[in-house]
């Protein structure tokens, strides 16, 4: 069987760089072609920045990894030109059930919010996610964009210099040296880049093991997320069942700490466990089985001069809440427009420090959420178990306890409160669109708001005046003029105006709000642009 994770997607090919007399200098090198590295490369290439991706492998990620992708990353992928195939292929879901012991305690329905083009989540195997990104890379290449992926190119040494980075790369035909003005290290949780640079990666290991199985079955379980606390088929532990495309189901079974991993992974031990869960007469085939121990940790700093870490190399969380790949894509969304401005000489290098501030803020939020989920799923003391069980017992009878049930808080974008790029809020508007927030979507007739805000600084006016374009130190800011009348559903008004009658928003290329006021004021917005680009 030719599974997509068995086919080389970017097979090794010799590059002229390998036989060049002197190391060839690239603009940006991305180390690692996982979801995060590929997203970074596409983002840069779309902006015309020359980028080379190196990966020690030549295939998409195999095995059981990310399956749940949230709205914000999908919106970012839309900007990167590959959101649609993901949504088309993905499984949509918004219902879930929570079980405790032998009974169902409640079910929920996350009503889709009609104001957004994208759903709250889709389930999609990570290998499809990566494949669609590689497809997009190929499409950009066909259009002549400056992007290249080199498979089986393993970075083995790194040398940092004030104005460039040198990499030693191992290939099937020997090693070679190349240079880059900038390096984005997206080489995963085990990051060799981080190790080679001697950087720390501290945090908390959860003393627990999870059996993660992807099984192919013809069963009529609905497209829902089912989570069990302390079920009869896995006493004292938890379990999760979630649907993926192609009739594949993700099953997580908590195993506890003192186990023999090799033994537990054997099909003769896995199959009885799954039968106990799914029912004796359900036919299934194992696609992949692994045992994971989870950790929550991050680097102290993500930017180290000209080497910038993004994704799992910079921060790692337990998968409850689906925050790994989801947050990594938000890293690159934050980084790439800044890097482009710095490369073009339109912003000072110090703008990149705001990547550190904003994304460390994001990572800490993710770590906090994911730690809390893990502590709820695996109570750490007798009393925390009593409280946890009390919440579950109450949730069966009363609505109020349900928000306390924590089997993973699904990823929502982080608001960059307190970022040095924000200007003080000068609109008495809704809190969800305050400076630092990522713009929520809104329907505009047949269209949506977010695609109109993509990739550059925008002056969004809603029933307010402003010039069609302003130029601030070489940065062009274009106006998008809207009226509450453009959206009969009033989502635009609800999300961007609240009680205000008009508003002017300065929106960054990553669709985060930099500043807002009730009316356009030349001086204030010029300052806001300078501030948002690290000049004030």
């Amino acid at each position: 069987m030719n599974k997509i994770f068995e086919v080389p997607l970017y097979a090794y090919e010799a590059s002229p760089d390998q036989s060049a007399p002197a190391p060839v200098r690239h603009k940006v090198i991305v180390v690692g072609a996982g979801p995060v590295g590929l997203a970074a490369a596409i983002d840069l290439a779309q902006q015309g920045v020359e980028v080379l991706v190196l990966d020690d492998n030549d295939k998409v990620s195999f095995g059981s990894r990310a399956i749940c992708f949230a709205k914000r990353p999908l919106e970012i992928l839309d900007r990167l030109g590959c959101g649609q195939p993901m949504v088309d292929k993905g499984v949509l879901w918004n219902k879930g059930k929570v079980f405790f012991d032998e009974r169902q305690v409640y079910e929920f329905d996350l009503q889709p919010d009609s104001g957004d083009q994208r759903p709250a989540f889709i389930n999609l195997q990570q290998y499809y996610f990566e494949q669609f990104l590689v497809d997009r890379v190929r499409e950009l290449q066909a259009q002549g964009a400056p992007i290249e992926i080199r498979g089986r190119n393993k970075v083995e040494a790194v040398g940092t210099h004030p104005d460039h980075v040198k990499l030693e790369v191992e290939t099937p035909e020997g090693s070679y040296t190349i240079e880059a003005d900038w390096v984005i290290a997206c080489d995963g949780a085990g990051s060799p880049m981080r190790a080679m640079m001697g950087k720390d990666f501290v945090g908390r290991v959860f003393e627990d093991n999870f059996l993660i199985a992807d099984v192919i079955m013809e069963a009529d379980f609905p497209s829902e997320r089912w989570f069990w606390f302390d079920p009869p088929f896995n006493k004292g532990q938890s379990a999760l069942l979630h649907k993926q495309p192609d009739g594949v189901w993700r099953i997580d079974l908590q195993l506890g700490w003192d186990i023999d991993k090799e033994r537990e992974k054997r099909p003769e031990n896995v199959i009885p466990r799954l039968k106990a869960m799914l029912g004796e007469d359900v036919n299934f085939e194992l696609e992949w089985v692994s045992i994971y121990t989870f950790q929550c940790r991050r680097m102290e700093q993500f930017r180290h001069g000209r080497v910038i870490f993004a994704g799992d190399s910079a921060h790692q969380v337990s998968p409850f809440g689906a925050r790994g790949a989801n947050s990594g894509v938000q890293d690159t969304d934050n980084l790439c427009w800044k890097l482009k401005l710095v490369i073009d000489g339109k912003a000072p290098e110090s703008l990149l420090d705001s990547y550190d501030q904003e994304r460390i803020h994001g990572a800490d939020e993710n770590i906090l959420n994911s730690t809390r989920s893990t502590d709820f799923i695996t109570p750490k003391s007798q009393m925390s178990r009593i409280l946890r069980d009390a919440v579950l017992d109450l949730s069966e009878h009363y609505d109020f306890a349900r928000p306390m049930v924590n089997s993973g808080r699904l990823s929502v974008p982080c608001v960059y409160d307190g970022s040095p790029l924000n200007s003080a809020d000068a609109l008495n508007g809704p809190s969800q669109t305050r400076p630092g927030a990522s713009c929520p979507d809104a329907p505009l007739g047949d269209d949506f708001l977010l695609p109109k805000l993509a990739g550059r600084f925008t002056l969004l006016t809603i029933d307010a005046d402003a010039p069609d374009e302003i130029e601030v130190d070489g940065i062009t800011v274009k106006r998008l003029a809207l009226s509450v009348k453009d959206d009969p559903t009033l989502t635009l008004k609800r999300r961007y105006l609240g009680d205000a009658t008009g508003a002017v928003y300065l929106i960054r290329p990553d669709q985060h709000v930099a500043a807002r006021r009730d009316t356009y004021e030349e001086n204030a917005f010029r300052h806001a642009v300078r501030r948002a680009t690290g000049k004030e």
Partner: protein
Amino acid sequence: MAELILSPNLTQADDFYADLVAAHEGLEKSESDAFNARLVLVLANHIGDNAILKQALEAAALKQE
């Protein structure tokens, strides 16, 4: 900021106390622990104000400054 009430506030203090003790009658220790946990959660939700609840957590810890 709202202040946690630490002066007498129950009109029928003896009645409440008797009900509380009675609610535990006949329960095993583990059942009583679970009951108390549920009771705390029910009351916390009714109060619904994190600032008050924080003060309550401190008050219950009996740590004198």
